[in-house]
């Protein structure tokens, strides 16, 4: 029982990252009803971009400066790749039906994974931790909670996710742009009649999603290896988180992210072999789909009259 606190903390921290990625799924789905399977790759590219900035920064840059810079540039890279993907791959087929869009998203996902392996020769990257005071070393430092070591950097995840979610919530619920987003999500034709430029709203929605996926990539990059396939599993789990919470719902995505993060760590807590950890998210998904198909905070889909 003494390990419980460790696994709970660990689950909350990784859950915060899932939540950040899940927000992008939920935003994009809310607005164009597309499950953007390339979203995990936005996260992967964010991680690479952060590492790229790290290489460019002078070697003596203090971590207090370089860590925010890396997070920022990962976010920008996430924005760029998300907006480019929308403009090049999704926009031309927007009227071709949801299946075409879904297949395109899977295609983009494969394309970005392979592009990353092509450019980086599939060598996993990691922030070097040989020198004391370097980013890699700082990010590997940990403190003991409940009998296990939690990396210090992980304590950034939860507050960052909360702040970003609150900003996003404010944008969606209180601003003119957010109202336009919700209008497009409900009825694009009626939104156009209001003078809303639908293409611009969709572009900005991808921008927000890409930003958060990129930032999530930077966070995981700090504590783990960066490689072309790194977006696949977290992307899938964040997608599950969005569905579990109720796809289209912002609080749902955050709740789903934390649930998935905690559940998979509870699997480890219960001494189930760690190989089953990834199964946990799918079990939660199946249970939620059986009991409450619209997701925990999702609203019932209203039939159009």
């Amino acid at each position, binding site marked *: 029982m003494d390990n419980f606190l460790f696994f709970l903390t660990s689950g909350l921290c990784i859950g915060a990252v899932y939540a950040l990625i899940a927000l992008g799924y939920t935003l994009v789905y809310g607005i164009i009803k597309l499950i953007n399977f390339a979203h995990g790759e936005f996260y992967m590219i964010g991680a690479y971009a952060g590492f790229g900035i790290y290489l460019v920064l002078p070697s003596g840059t203090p971590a207090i400066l370089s860590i925010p810079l890396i997070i920022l540039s990962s976010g920008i890279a996430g924005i760029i790749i998300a907006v480019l993907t929308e403009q090049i791959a999704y926009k031309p087929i927007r009227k071709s039906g949801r299946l075409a869009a879904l297949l395109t998203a899977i295609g983009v996902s494969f394309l970005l994974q392979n592009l990353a392996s092509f450019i980086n020769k599939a060598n996993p990257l990691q922030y070097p931790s040989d020198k004391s005071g370097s980013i890699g070393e700082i990010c590997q430092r940990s403190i003991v909670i409940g009998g296990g070591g939690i990396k210090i950097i992980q304590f950034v995840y939860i507050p960052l996710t909360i702040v970003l979610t609150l900003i996003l919530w404010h944008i969606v619920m209180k601003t003119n742009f957010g*109202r336009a987003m919700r209008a497009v999500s409900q009825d694009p034709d009626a*939104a*156009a*009649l209001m*003078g809303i430029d639908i293409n611009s709203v969709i572009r900005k929605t991808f921008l927000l999603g890409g930003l958060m996926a990129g930032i999530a990539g930077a966070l995981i990059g700090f504590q783990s290896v960066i490689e072309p396939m790194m977006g696949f599993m977290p992307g899938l789990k964040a997608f599950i988180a969005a569905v579990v919470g109720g796809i289209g719902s912002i609080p749902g995505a955050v709740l789903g992210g934390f649930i998935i993060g905690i559940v998979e760590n509870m699997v480890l807590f219960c001494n189930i072999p760690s190989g089953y950890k990834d199964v946990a998210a799918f079990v939660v998904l199946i249970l939620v789909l059986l009991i409450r198909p619209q997701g925990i905070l999702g609203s019932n889909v209203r039939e159009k009259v």
Partner: protein
Amino acid sequence: MFLDVRKLCVAYGAIDALKSVSLHINEGEIVALLGANGAGKSSVLDAISRITTAKSGKIIFNGTDITNEKPENIVRKGIAHCPEGRKIFFDLTVLENLQLGAYTINDQYAIEANLEKIFTYFPVLKSRRSQRGGTLSGGEQQMLAVGRALMSSPKLLLLDEPSLGLAPKLIDHIFDIIREINHKEKVTVFLIEQNANEALLHADRAYVLENGRISINSDNAEELLKDPHIIKAYLGG
């Protein structure tokens, strides 16, 4: 001419909805477009507000060709469309629906002034402003749809069946307000109606659309009320 529609053709796939429709509207008028279900009335409005693309023909508004204008720019040119089926945003509050109507206006004071004006026309919207649009009754939704269209300070208001599904008393009320808006706010009104009787009572002029073509073009709407063809076809005489 304020609005000039010339030889407008609209097709949905292989089906021709409009076959060379020409009509015009002068500034300050209330013009009605009558016709049976499926005659193509909504297609005329949809083509003007660019929800639908014209196959051929021209639409000139205030001297500019808007036939191929982007839909989101039509509102900015001064045309507000209150569409078929109202299309209010169910999950947004009444206030948010109205604010979206003023999406193209940047001046916060102008938005507030419009809001006040709409609340005086439709006081029920004021008392329901924090309620979600989907919880309103049919009549209230219609008022919200008209109010939302007026929020953009339009010069031309396109109304698609404002009386649809409303109780007779409410129909009178809506038409009274349409006349008031036309008179006081100098908003030109182009409306579609199946309720020919009510529409002809309030309109200055009227067109009748049959199978995608204009069959009657009358300079005096009230005279149409006595037209035997109209009585037979639309007034149940």
